[in-house]
């Protein structure tokens, strides 16, 4: 399995100086969680706005491609913040996180969401108006929302289940 192939990397990460240093201090992790939530807010908020643009709800002036150019950099900054802080949070408790089924679900969904985002979602949002019909655009928006919120929901589940 892919997961067991990753085990040596996880062991190394958890035992590294960085992993030990982060794991020692709840304060460090708490600060990283603040960054993680800030990233989540930008990423999911940006996903909602881009999905509204795709579905033709609000943001009347300009195309969805223009909206994507305006929102995209902020949304990607949110994704970067979430991934970097998330990686560090993971490093501070690597072995425990890695065992969790919700962690694994979250990472699987994240991978799918990222692939979908940079392939189909990007194609549809950047396409000139009229290239894709209203239902194709709405469906794309819906799938994108489901995937990214799915990542968020499974992330919350790590803490509780």
């Amino acid at each position: 399995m892919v997961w067991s192939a990753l085990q040596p990397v996880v062991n190394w990460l958890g035992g590294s100086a960085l992993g030990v240093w982060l794991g020692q201090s709840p304060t460090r992790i708490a600060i990283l969680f603040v960054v993680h939530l800030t990233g989540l807010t930008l990423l999911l908020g940006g996903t909602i706005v881009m999905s509204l643009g795709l579905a033709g709800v609000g943001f009347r002036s300009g195309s969805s491609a223009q909206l994507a150019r305006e929102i995209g950099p902020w949304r990607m900054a949110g994704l970067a913040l979430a991934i970097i802080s998330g990686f560090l949070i993971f490093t501070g408790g690597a072995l425990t996180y890695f065992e969790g089924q919700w962690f694994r679900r979250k990472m699987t969904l994240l991978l799918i969401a990222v692939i979908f985002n940079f392939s189909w979602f990007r194609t549809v949002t950047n396409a000139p108006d009229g290239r894709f019909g209203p239902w194709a655009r709405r469906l794309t928006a819906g799938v994108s929302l489901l995937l990214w919120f799915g990542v968020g929901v499974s992330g919350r589940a790590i803490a509780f289940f």
Partner: protein
Amino acid sequence: MPVVEWLHALEQTRISEVVRESAFPYIEGTHVLGLSLSVGMIAWVDLRLVGATMRTRPVSEVYESVQGWMLAGFCLMFVTGALLFVAHATKAYESVFFRAKVAFLLLAGINALIFHWTVNHRTTSWNDAPVPPTAARMAGLTSLVLWLSVIAAGRLFAYDL
């Protein structure tokens, strides 16, 4: 009756018990993901006011496009937040982070109200300006900083629970 006794009584209620003992993960998860609709939406208005994004769109268009989602988001946050408070009322009341969060929330609300009362987006002379005047930019920046502080204080308070 002193506040602490009143909060103790609140924690004896059935609803407090249900949230504490079974519903907590779902309500807390909704509260966290609700960030995308509340802060995640108001942030676009703030960033537009600062002149950091969507410069070619009228301020009124950005505001009206997110308004409904944002209001729904803040209602969701208030309801789920109130339930979470009822579950751990005494701890919340005693936590410096919770008190800071309430203070930041009040300040963010006052900032928004002042802006709302003094500016009418639609008729204002700078509705189409790529970069609004200094007062509006300050209002946007203040809002961004306060909402980030709300997120930070909220997340740090969760560590106290």
